[in-house]
Every structure is written in structure tokens, then in C-alpha cells.
């Protein structure tokens, strides 16, 4: 774009109609697109989950055949991980990072547009496989080879290309975030003055750059095994299925931190606001985040203790995994210390943030249990694992996203959301999520395997309880949708600062945030030490 065109661009608002959204390079527009897309995917993945919980409501086969059930578990995982959680965090990054560091926009706005707009096509490609002959991917979101190569439905090729596109989108998004944070900070915004959300996203972006290419490599190898006669994962040709698991989890473990580090950043923004105190231990938070990111690269084999690993390997991966509890503990204690003796109020974002701290910690504890090798042999592939990762992802990542939405909605829309409905949404979600996932711990300990459409009679009671919780949690998300739409359409006008205790550059711009912000850098005096 030429300098002249650029200057003109600054003097008008958004374009009208659909072209505004198709051709936009504005970080707020793209952030909004990402957030709506991820919400749509959240409901789609949620619908798949409802099918799963309906089928598991009682023993026997009720609604779907086992093959379709497997497609549901697979698609639920893929859609939630790649469609809901990751794009939602990218959306928040787009919206908030420029506002938090005093930048006029993202560093690479055209690439930003592209990284969003290839995403709907990736998911169209992937979800369309459900309507193809032989059905969609049915091998679990971890797509272990050779189940996903030799024994896969024909549609697996569409799945592979969808993953390629998602990977490209994530990589472009990550490059954009890094370039924005490193090159676009306002004068006076030193690295150690950046809000923690910016820090966690910077580290997350590096994780994305490191592991998404490995994922792309893995699915490319699958493509070659399926269509070009190679034997990367085919034992008959000299390949090795266990190699697939190593490669996948080399991507997969950093991936779980990609889904939680930005959540740490969000919670570190919200808790100080509503405790009306500065964040306790800012520096240690930064270093803890970096430590977690580093450790995430050397723990991958704890997902595959049962493949037959030498004792030394098991011990290494067990201890390195347990080590992650240390920086994570630093974070949890810092959040608690921030709240300690604070003047706390309990608006909806704070409720979600506190629930995050409590329930994410609970999920972390079961993670430590799973890290213990001899115990893992019992828990492996059981519902205990399902309970563990849903505790860190739903009341973890998803709750942080809900908290973020409530926290920044007034800044985005200029209107306060309906606090009563917000609290209703929180309490229904909080009760729902625990009724849904807590009994799954017991199911797993009692021996119920994951990814099965039917189960032995002794598991019936906890399964129906879990299903009831699932329906409650699912339905209560409609309240969220209603609150968001209501807030966009009107409501009490929000002040610029919105929250009494809120600090940071994003609260110095008007509410709603104008289409263009920080075209001139903010006054350095506004940038406070964290």
C-alpha cells in the first residue's frame, strides 16, 4: 500500500457491507472475525459433544452407530482444539495486543487478513468429510498411524489438507504476533513493562512456530504413506508406528501449552483489576511462563509411557513432567497472593478467573498423577485422562476465554453486558462443568476406557450424571451467546476505564474502541511499571 493510500485510509471508518469483513486489514475487525468464528466452532464442537454424551447417557447403543460415534469424538477434539480454543486466543491477540502495547495495528495487516480467511475453508474441508462415503476421520484427534493411514476412511486426505491449512494459518498468526510485539511497541513500553497477556502470547507464538511445522511434517508423512507408497509409519515396509507417536507428541505437548499460556495472561490481567492490587510477582510470572514453554519440549513421551520405553526414559519423562508443576505453582501462588488482602469484587470476569485458578489447579493435580509412570499404566486411555484434560481445557482455557470476553466486551462494544445474566451464565457453567467432568475421574479409576460408544453396566450411574452435567453446560452456553448479542445491541454505556481497578493502555482509549487507535503513540507517562 502506498503512503498516500495509507493516509487516506486513516481518514475514513470501516468500509460498508460484506467487503469490510472480506478485505479488512484492521486488527479489531480481524479480531472480531476470529472471535465469532471460534464461537461458531465452539457451538459446532459442542454439538458433537452433545451427541457423545447422549449416546453415553445409558449403556447400549441408542442413537448412533459406533463408527459415527468415533467420528464424533474425533471431530469434537479437532474442532475444539483447532477451531475454538486456538482461533479464540488469536482473536483476543488481534484485538488486545495492539491496544495493550500502544500500536496502531498489527505489524502485518494483509497477512493478518489471509491468516483468518483461510481458516473457514480449512474447517469446511474437514467438516465436509462427515458427509462423504465412508464418513469423516474416526481415529481420534491424535490420529495415530497406522489407524489413520492403513485403516482410515478415504476422507483422511481432506483431513490432512485441512490440518495443513490450519497450520499455515496458525504460523502466519504467530509471525504477526511476534512482529507486532517486537517491532510495534510504543516508546517507553519496554519488554518488562508489557502486560502479561502480551508476554504469554509472545512465548505462545514462538511455541507455535516451533511445533506447527512438525505437525505439518507428520501429516505430510501420512499423506505419503497413504498415496505414494512410503512407509514412514508402516512396519511392513520398515517404518514404525511408534515414530508417529513421538512426532505427534513432540507437536502435541507444546500444543497444550499453546492453549493455556494465553489463558494465564488473561487471568493475570483480570485478577489484579478486581482485587484492586498490582499483580504479585510480575517478573516471576514472565520467567515461569518461559520455563513452562521450555519444559514443554522435553516431556512429550509422558503421553506414551505404555509403548514400551526403557526405565531411564520413563524416569526422565516422569521427572521432567513433574518439574512443570514448579513454574505452574509459582503462577497459582502469585494469583492467590494478588487476591490476598485485596478489595475484591466479584463481577462475572472475576468469577470466571477465580474458577479458572481453582479448577485448572485441580486439572493440574490429576496431571501430576498421570505423570507417575506406574499409575499411568493404570490410567492410560481411561476416562481419567478424559477428565484430566477436560479440566485443564474447559474450566481452564474455555473459562479464561469467557472471562476475557466479559472483561473486554464493554471496551469492544461500548456497552456493559447484563451482569445478572453473566452471573447466571457463570454459575450454570460452573455447576455444569463439574457435574460433567468430575464423575469421569471415578469412571476412569474404575476402568472405563475412553472413545467407546457403549460400556459395562457398572459405569451407568456416573455416566448419566456426567451426561446431565454435559447438557446443562451445553445449554448454559446459549446464555453466553444471548449476553453477547444483547451487549452488542445496547446496554448501559461503558466508561473508558470500564472497571474501577483496570490499568493499562487499552483502558485509556474510548469505549467502544474507535476503528483506529494509537495512530500517534500514547504518552509514555501512561505506561506504568507492572
Amino acid at each position, binding site marked *: 500500500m502506498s503512503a498516500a493510500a495509507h493516509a487516506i485510509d486513516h481518514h475514513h471508518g470501516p468500509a460498508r457491507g460484506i467487503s469490510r469483513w472480506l478485505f479488512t486489514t484492521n486488527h479489531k475487525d480481524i479480531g472480531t472475525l476470529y472471535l465469532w468464528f471460534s464461537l461458531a466452532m465452539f457451538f459446532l464442537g459442542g454439538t458433537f459433544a452433545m451427541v457423545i454424551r447422549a449416546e453415553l447417557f445409558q449403556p447400549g447403543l441408542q442413537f448412533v452407530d459406533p463408527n459415527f460415534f468415533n467420528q464424533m469424538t474425533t471431530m469434537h477434539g479437532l474442532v475444539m482444539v483447532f477451531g475454538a480454543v486456538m482461533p479464540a486466543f488469536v482473536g483476543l491477540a488481534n484485538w488486545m495486543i495492539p491496544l495493550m502495547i500502544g500500536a496502531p495495528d498489527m505489524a502485518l495487516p494483509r497477512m493478518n487478513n489471509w491468516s483468518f480467511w483461510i481458516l473457514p475453508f480449512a474447517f469446511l474441508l474437514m467438516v465436509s468429510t462427515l458427509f462423504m462415503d465412508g464418513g469423516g476421520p474416526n481415529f481420534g484427534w491424535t490420529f495415530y498411524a497406522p489407524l489413520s493411514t492403513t485403516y482410515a476412511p478415504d476422507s483422511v486426505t481432506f483431513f490432512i489438507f485441512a490440518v495443513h491449512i490450519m497450520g499455515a494459518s496458525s504460523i502466519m498468526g504467530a509471525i504477526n504476533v511476534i512482529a507486532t510485539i517486537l517491532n510495534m511497541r510504543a516508546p517507553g513500553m519496554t519488554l518488562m513493562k508489557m502486560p502479561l497477556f502480551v508476554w504469554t502470547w509472545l512465548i505462545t507464538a514462538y511455541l507455535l512456530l516451533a511445533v506447527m511445522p512438525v505437525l505439518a511434517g507428520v501429516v505430510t508423512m501420512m499423506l505419503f504413506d497413504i498415496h505414494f507408497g512410503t512407509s514412514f509409519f508402516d512396519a511392513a515396509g*520398515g517404518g514404525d508406528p511408534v515414530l508417529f507417536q513421538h512426532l505427534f507428541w513432540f507437536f502435541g505437548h507444546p500444543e497444550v501449552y499453546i492453549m493455556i499460556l494465553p489463558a494465564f495472561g488473561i487471568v493475570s490481567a483480570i485478577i489484579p483489576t478486581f482485587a484492586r492490587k498490582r499483580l504479585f510477582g510480575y517478573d516471576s510470572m514472565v520467567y515461569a511462563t518461559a520455563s513452562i514453554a521450555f519444559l514443554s519440549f522435553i516431556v512429550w513421551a509422558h503421553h506414551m509411557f505404555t509403548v514400551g520405553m526403557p526405565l531411564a526414559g520413563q524416569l526422565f519423562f516422569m521427572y521432567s513432567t513433574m518439574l512443570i508443576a514448579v513454574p505452574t505453582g509459582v503462577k497459582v501462588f502469585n494469583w492467590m497472593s494478588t487476591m490476598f488482602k485485596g478489595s475484591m469484587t466479584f463481577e462475572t470476569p472475576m468469577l470466571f478467573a477465580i474458577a479458572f485458578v481453582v479448577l485448572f489447579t485441580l486439572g493440574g493435580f490429576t496431571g501430576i498423577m498421570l505423570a507417575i509412570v506406574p499409575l499411568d499404566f493404570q490410567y492410560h486411555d481411561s476416562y481419567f485422562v478424559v477428565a484430566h484434560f477436560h479440566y485443564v481445557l474447559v474450566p481452564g482455557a474455555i473459562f479464561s476465554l469467557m472471562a476475557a470476553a466479559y472483561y473486554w466486551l464493554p471496551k469492544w462494544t461500548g456497552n456493559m453486558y447484563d451482569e445478572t445474566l453473566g452471573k447466571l451464565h457463570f454459575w450454570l457453567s460452573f455447576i455444569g462443568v463439574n457435574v460433567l467432568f468430575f464423575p469421569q475421574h471415578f469412571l476412569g479409576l474404575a476402568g472405563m476406557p475412553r472413545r467407546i460408544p457403549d460400556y459395562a453396566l457398572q459405569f451407568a450411574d456416573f455416566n448419566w450424571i456426567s451426561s446431565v452435567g454435559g447438557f446443562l453446560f451445553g445449554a448454559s452456553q446459549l446464555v453466553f451467546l444471548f449476553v453477547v448479542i444483547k451487549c452488542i445491541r445496547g446496554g448501559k454505556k461503558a466508561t473508558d476505564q470500564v472497571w474501577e481497578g483496570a490499568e493499562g493502555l487499552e483502558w485509556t482509549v474510548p469505549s467502544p474502541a474507535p476503528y483506529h487507535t494509537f495512530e500517534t503513540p500514547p504518552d509514555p507517562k501512561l505506561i506504568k511499571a507492572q
Partner: protein
Amino acid sequence: MSEHDDTGSPNARLVKRLLLGVGGMFAFGFALVPLYDVICDVTGLNGKGRTQDQYVLTEGLAPEVDEQREITMQFTVHGELVDDWKFRPSERAMVIRPGEMKRISYTVTNPYDHAVTTQAIPSVAPNVASGYLNKIECFCFEEQVLEPGQTVEMPLQFFVDPELPERVSKLTLAYRLYDISENKPAVASNR
């Protein structure tokens, strides 16, 4: 990248570096494939036993037989072809002494009216022992072509290195047989 580089804005330079990193990680993913094989070979993980070329026989062929020790050697077969193809070892188990040269054979029958190509893939348990099981001659070194209805007897000659750690008293050599007629892979396995 040098400081004198005139590729324009700091963004362009940074993006170039980051893309280089992305390309590097993509290549690293593929580099892990041979690296994995090397690590498995060196550590004996995922053990398949040692083949002739990995074990250099010195004068007098086999090493000295350790008369003091007895090891139980088990032979198992598995895979979906075991029943239909009557894939069997001639003995299920035998007691051997370290250093002792032993020979057994496996039989397999092609149940179809067309020729098939098969490949057997070995696996040794426990892992730690796989570096001490030396196969001098094995049907698993190459693909086997079976004519329609043909039954073949496939030899296996091996010995166990006397250096085998004391705590190992039982060894299992497992074979899985694959029908590779349709998708004849380029990689001939000798592992």
C-alpha cells in the same frame, strides 16, 4: 543476517528470520525419522535383534559357549495372517546356552490362488536383550515370494551373546508377518 542487509523494514527482516525458523522446524520433523532409527539402533530400543552385518564374527565363528548359564528362548508369531496362513515356528520355546549357535524354522502357507509377497518384522523382548540376540540367517532379512498354495519352510539361525546381562533369563523373539503384495514398499527391511 548481516547488519548491512538492505531488505527494508525491520518487519521484513524479522519475518524472514521467523520463516527460516519455520522451515527449519519442518525439516527437523523429517530429520527425526532417521534420527529415531539411529537412536533405536544405538540403544537397542524397539529391539529387533542384531543382524549379520551389525555383528562381526571373528575366528571360529561363534564366541565361547557359556556352559554355566541357561536361557529360555521363546518364539511367538502374531498378526492377522497367523491363522489363515498357518505361520508357525517349529518350536515354541527352547532352552539354550549363551554363545550356542541354534537353528529353528518357521513354516507359512499361501492360502490364495495367486502369488503373494510377505515380509516378517521381528521384535525382541525385553528391550535390553535385543542388542545381544544375533541373527546369522533369517527369513526376515528379505521379502518372501509364495506361489499359490505353496508352503515354505523358512530358516532362522541365531546365537545369544554371552555378554547378555545376568538379570535376563528369558528372551522372546516375536514375528509379525505382513502381506506386502499390493503395496510393495521400496524399503527392504533387514531389521
